[in-house]
């Protein structure tokens, strides 16, 4: 398998989502490991702006050519933006999962990094499953 990118400045969930905190906004997406495991992504279904997401609960669906998978929120809060570009170009998740392939911006209802792994912890978690 190709090298897995795990940026230092992000936090990670055990369901292979990343979270980037900037003030009171947290951007969320799936990790490089997750997009590699899924393969060619052909469909992404995201919640509406204004809806609530709950940590470890499904907030959307991602489909590869072969399979349908749930997307799990790495933190709880209110959705304040969704990446509309993924409707027409779901492959952005494969091409740039930490950038143009972002999924949601969440206004967290509590500590945004509670229960999440740092980059080193997540790298270990990925290695354990290799």
């Amino acid at each position, binding site marked *: 398998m190709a090298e897995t990118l795990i940026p230092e400045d992000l936090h990670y969930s055990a369901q292979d989502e990343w979270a980037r905190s900037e003030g009171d906004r947290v951007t969320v997406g799936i990790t490089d490991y997750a997009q590699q495991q899924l393969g060619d992504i052909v*469909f992404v279904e995201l919640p509406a702006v204004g809806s609530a997401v709950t940590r470890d609960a499904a907030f959307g669906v991602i*489909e590869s*050519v*072969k399979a349908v998978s749930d997307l799990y929120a790495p933190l709880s809060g209110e959705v304040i933006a969704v990446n509309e570009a993924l409707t027409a170009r779901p492959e952005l998740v494969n091409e740039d999962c930490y950038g143009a392939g972002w999924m949601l911006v969440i206004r967290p209802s509590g500590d945004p990094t509670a229960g999440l792994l740092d980059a080193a912890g997540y790298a270990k978690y990925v290695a354990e499953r290799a």
Partner: protein
Amino acid sequence: MTELRRTPLAALHERLGGRMVPFAGFAMPVQYTSIVDEHRAAREAAALFDVSHMGQISLAGAQAGACADLLCTRAMSALAPGRVRYALLCNESGGVIDDLTVYRTGADSFLLCVNAANTAVDLAWIEKHAGERSSVLDESEQTGLLALQGPASAAVLAQVGGAALGALKRFSFARAELAGCSVLASRTGYTGADGFELYCSARDAAPLFEALLEAGRAHGLVPAGLGARDTLRLEAALPLYSQELDADTTPLEAGLERFVELDRDFLGSAAIRRRRDAGFTRALVGFEIEGRGIARTGYPVLSAGRPVGRVTSGGPSPTLSRAIGLAYVPRELAAIGSALEIEVRGRAIPARVVETPFVSGRAAGRTNA
């Protein structure tokens, strides 16, 4: 859980980065790099698949032709040596035991290529009906099978000593020496593209696979897995046993009437005629999703909000960049253009019945077999 079986190519797949998954009791590569890239290679250049998991059963003896005629929905005694036919094995209720290709390998011999998951059942069925009259041999274990598919396939074979195979007609086969390996090469496949299926000894499978990859690189040949095999066969609307075909379904309901000779008797023919005369209530159709969403195997098919059937195969078409699928629906909804809905996670997504194959290549389907 029982141990997964390995084809003679399993170690090579792992070395090439294939992601191995269980399929029909075998560990098989679902993809090497990307299902979409492997699919495109088969449509635009060439792709190489390991299909050694499939079963090969030989039938030989003075009565082999009569035996094949009894077992298959098409008369095989009429098949010329060097020709292949697609057909079905049916049970006495007219349901499908398996779909297969039959090779006339000699005056008194045939080779049957069957689905991996059905090999044991097929073998028992064939032995039961062959009786003393023909010898039936399971050759699956000692046989390797590679599928070289795509418009550049003949050019790739020319690089390994198979230039003469370029003249083979669709559904014909010939023996050849390719990269030092003895093969039976047939112009057949399960992708709707031009291509060849190459039968060899299990021992030669890996060297042949590597020689083809090496020779084909300049032609854009890539190794491809079961993921692309499935998206390709869906675009070609080729049925897959256990999804479109099963022991309760007649070949006619699956739209395979051109492979069923109801003017003669074979195992299941009386029941198929009886069921046809009583009238079928459902038909297999191809559909395209018109809304946003992807139909998957097992999703309910609705009409005016009411469940009327199930998706037998569905997914994204890499060639069309649209979601397509196959489903059994009531006959009154089977006409081209009929409006359907597919229930995707509780939502009804509009779909429409369309002509199949969804993608027609030079040799899509098995129409000229």
